[in-house]
Each structure stands twice: as C-alpha cells, then as structure tokens.
C-alpha cells in the first residue's frame, strides 16, 4: 500500500479534529506528499478530497457538541449557544475523547472550565459543570440494594453504636464555592437563573429507583456522610451530628438525618460476608 494504514488514519484523525477546520488543518501538514490529500483520499467533480474529509469533521464536532449539551444543559444555558460552541471547540482540542462510550466525553469539562476565560463572565460556571457531571456519574454508578428503614429497625438498638453503615455507591458529595444548585434548579424549571451566592455549599447527589436527585446539605451532614464513607462506627457519626446540633435536641437531629438518608436510599445494605472455607 502506498501509505501505511496508521499513517492514513493518523492524518485523517488530525484533519477531522483540527479545531479550525480541515483546510487549516491541511496547512499544518508539512510532511504531506506533493499530491497532498488528493493522493490519499479520492476527490471528484462533486466533492473534493478535503470536502469529503470535512463531512466527517462536521459530524465529529456536532455529534460531541450535542452530547455535551445534553449532559450540561444548565452550563450551556448560562453560557449561551455561541460561548458553549467555542468552549466545546477548545475543550475537545484539549481533552479529545479516548473512551469507547460518549458518556465519558464530558468528564473533564468542569476541570477545563476552572481556568477558562469564560469564568470572568460566569465565575460559578466550573462548579455548575461539576454538579451536572456528578448527575451523569451517579446515574451510571454501580448498583447496590439500599438499606431500608425496616432493616435498620430490625437491628437491636444496643448494636447501633458499633454499626459500620456504608453509603450507597450511587451518590456523590460535592463541596462547591458557589451555591449553584439553585442555578441548575432554575434552568430545569425553565426559569431565568441569577448569579448564585458566592458561599461554600455542599450538594448531595444520589440515585433512588433509577432516578437521580440532588439537594444542598449543610456542613454537618456533609461531614457525617464523609465519616460514614471512611467506615466510621455509627457512634462517631452520631457524635459529630450531636456536636453540630447547635442547641437542638441531638437525638432528634440524629433521627431526622438518619430517616432522611434511609428514605433517600443514601445507605447501602451491608455487603454479605462469604462463609469461611472449611
């Protein structure tokens, strides 16, 4: 073959993903043979070789733009169509897809936005993208049976302090600089979103019956859930909640939070232990 397969595929890859189009991508191909692209890709009266490659370049960009719009509807709404388009152009150049599924195309968008000039116009945009990405991740996170209230009640109260409850794998706790949950909520409801408060906030994202939910939580709940994640005993979690009860009855506070976790499916049933081999 005149051109090895790897050379052909690599050239087409570079042209299709060239941020400013195939024509500009071709200018950067200094090692291309004298026949140029036409010596590799067949052109005809209807479409030149470059125009044919351009069809793929357009499909590449617009397909991924659609995927990212779907995964980040609030980020796209806040930035507006043109800004989002330009954001995606730069993002794909910096983080080209490497995974077999388009599900992972947007996994670096929040990190990319951290130092992006668009933050000048919407300083909270990276936090918003992070929250939207968490919704996608939690949607596909591993399954596990949720711990139900009845199962918890069936455990003898004297055993509760030493219990090591585990959080459900389909959840995430985000600590954010901006209160962006309100922005996402507004966009979801089709309302105009305002710039959120520049305050530290924690957002819990979880899945219950295949649906993904999110809500702001306070510092105490965030710390308590993180303590559960590290495998702490329930007693230690209770101590933390009691210390943060701020004048409220600690027992009522502990019960209130536990009930909510159980009804939301934030806790998973304990993993079954394998019977020891005899």
């Amino acid at each position: 073959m005149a051109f090895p397969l790897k050379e052909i595929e690599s050239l087409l890859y570079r042209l299709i993903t060239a941020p400013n189009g195939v024509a500009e991508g071709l200018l950067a191909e200094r090692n291309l043979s004298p026949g140029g692209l036409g010596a590799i890709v067949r052109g005809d009266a209807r479409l030149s070789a470059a125009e044919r490659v351009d069809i793929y370049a357009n499909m590449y960009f617009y397909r991924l733009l659609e995927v990212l719009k779907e995964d980040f509807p609030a980020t796209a709404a806040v930035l507006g169509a043109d800004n989002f388009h330009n954001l995606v152009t730069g993002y794909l150049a910096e983080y080209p897809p490497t995974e077999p599924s388009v599900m992972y195309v947007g996994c670096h968008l929040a990190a990319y936005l951290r130092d992006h000039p668009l933050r000048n116009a919407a300083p909270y945009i990276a936090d918003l993208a992070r929250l939207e990405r968490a919704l996608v991740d939690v949607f596909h996170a591993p399954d596990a049976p949720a711990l139900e209230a009845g199962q918890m009640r069936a455990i003898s109260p004297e055993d509760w302090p030493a219990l090591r409850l585990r959080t459900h794998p389909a959840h995430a706790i985000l600590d954010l600089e901006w209160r962006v949950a309100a922005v996402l909520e507004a966009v979801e409801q089709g309302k105009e979103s305002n710039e959120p408060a520049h305050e530290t906030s924690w957002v819990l994202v979880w899945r219950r019956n295949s649906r993904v939910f999110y809500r702001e939580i306070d510092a105490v709940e965030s710390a308590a859930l993180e303590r559960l994640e590290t495998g702490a005993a329930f007693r230690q979690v209770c101590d933390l909640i009691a210390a943060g009860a701020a004048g409220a009855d600690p027992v009522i506070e502990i019960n209130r939070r536990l009930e909510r976790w159980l009804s939301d499916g934030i806790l998973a049933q304990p993993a079954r232990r394998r019977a020891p081999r005899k």
Partner: protein
Amino acid sequence: MKRSDFPFLGFGVGLRRPHYGHVIENHPRVDWFEVISENFMVPGGRPLEVLEAVRERYPIVMHGVSMSIGSADPLDRNYLRDLKALARRCKPAWISDHLCWTGVGGRNLHDLLPLPYTREVVDHVAARIRRVQDLLERRILIENVSSYLGFVSSTMTEWEFLTAVADEADCGILLDINNIFVSAFNHGFEAGKYIDAVPAERVVQYHLAGHSDHGAYLLDTHDHPVRDEVWTLYERAVRRFGAVSALVEWDDHIPEFGVLAETAGRARSIYESVRGAGAGRYGVSSERDREPALQAHHRA
C-alpha cells in the same frame, strides 16, 4: 460459518432511550430488540435495569460502535473484556460491530470511518476479527458502513472488500441496506450490484434506516423514514438471501414507538410477499432450516 448457525429473529427495532418506558410497560409487539452495546457497558443504573427487563421478554442482539476493528491501534482488550461481560449478562443472539475504524492513537472519533479496500487491509482486519471471535468465544457480524470518502489506494470495490474480510475471518455480515444506498450515491456505484455480490450464506441481519439528503451527498442520519428506494433494495435482498432477521434503526428525531413498529411491520410484509404468508413469523426460519431456530432465546 453458515447462516443457520444463527437464529432467525424476525423483524425488530433498535432499543432507544425515549422508548424504554413504553417497551417495559406495554411490551409492544415486535420480534426482537437490538441494543447499542456501549450504552449498556456501564457500572449500573437504569440502562442495565432496562436491559434486564427487556431481555426477559424479547431476544436481544448487541450492536457495538467502538470496536474499531479496522484501526491501526492494538485491539482494546479492556473494551473487549467489558463487551464479553455484557454478553454474559444479556445473552444476545449475536454480537455485531462495523467494518470501519473509529479512532487511532488511543483517541476515539465516535464515528465510523471507511478503510482502504486493499488486500493488506483485508488481512489486517480479518486477523483482528478472528482474535475478537476467539476472545468472545463466538462468531460476530460485521456491518458495512455509510461512507463519504474513498481512498486512492483501494484496489477493490466495497462489496469485494466486505466479502474478502468476512470470508477470511469466517464471520457473519450485517448488511445495512440504507448504508449501501447512501454509499452508492456518494461514490457513484450501483447499489443493486452490491446486494447481488455479497456471499448469501454469511448475511445474518439487515439494518433499515433513513438518511438525509445534502444535495452533493447523502448522510446516514437515521432521522427519517426509510426511503422507497431503500425498500426496493430490501426486497431485492429478501429475494436473494431469504430468511434474514431485519432491524429498524432510528437515532435522531426519534418518533413514537408505533412508527418504528410499523416500519418493522412493513419489512415483514415485504418479506412475506416474497417468501409467502407466515414465513416472517418469529421462530420460522428458511425452507432450508426449519428445525427449531433458537432454543436459547425464546420469547417469554
């Protein structure tokens, strides 16, 4: 391989997200579903729950878009491991992917790009399909793609290339009738020749879909009804190939499920008008292989 190694599933529809609820709740009358493998190669959540529910009632086929069998990169072992794990879980009647490359250098274009039609590339791709088949412990199907460019270095037609790869790899063919029509227009060949030339015994499945007309070229967008010219080609295929399972794909501007089911019904009607009334019933195979077609994938 021969076609009778695979069951005749009848007339199915590609399972897409907007229809998940309808399919699970109403159990519409279609013979089978094809799922996009990558959409279900996830740790957990709704997609896998849906897959479990659907496969309890319908035969399932896994159709992939990222095997990149024609890439110059090494085969992605992790991808193949995950694909095999999904197959173990959903027990598909078969697994298919495309005769194309989707990325190189560890990057993925998420598109189906054509290959140079040369002897060297036939050997490269066929060897890789054989390795995939060994790893998956089953024969796979490869699908002809719609293409918008061709290579100066090609020394054979697309159908000769497809035939050579399938013969050398000893795999099945998923013949996309719409892709033949689209590529025929884009490259100026006669679509009927393609249908007449592929090895009949290797054709196990058809795809039927719509495309969009951009004047100078046709684009395989799966966002329109199947064009009359594609139905005519399908009829020609039915006359030549006999009992081959057919599937309707619709990926953009997806209409209500009933529209897809009607399209699958039209495929069945055409099939029965050629092969005889009742021939298109699920589980009835060709005249040649009327023994029970599929024991492992019966309908609940």
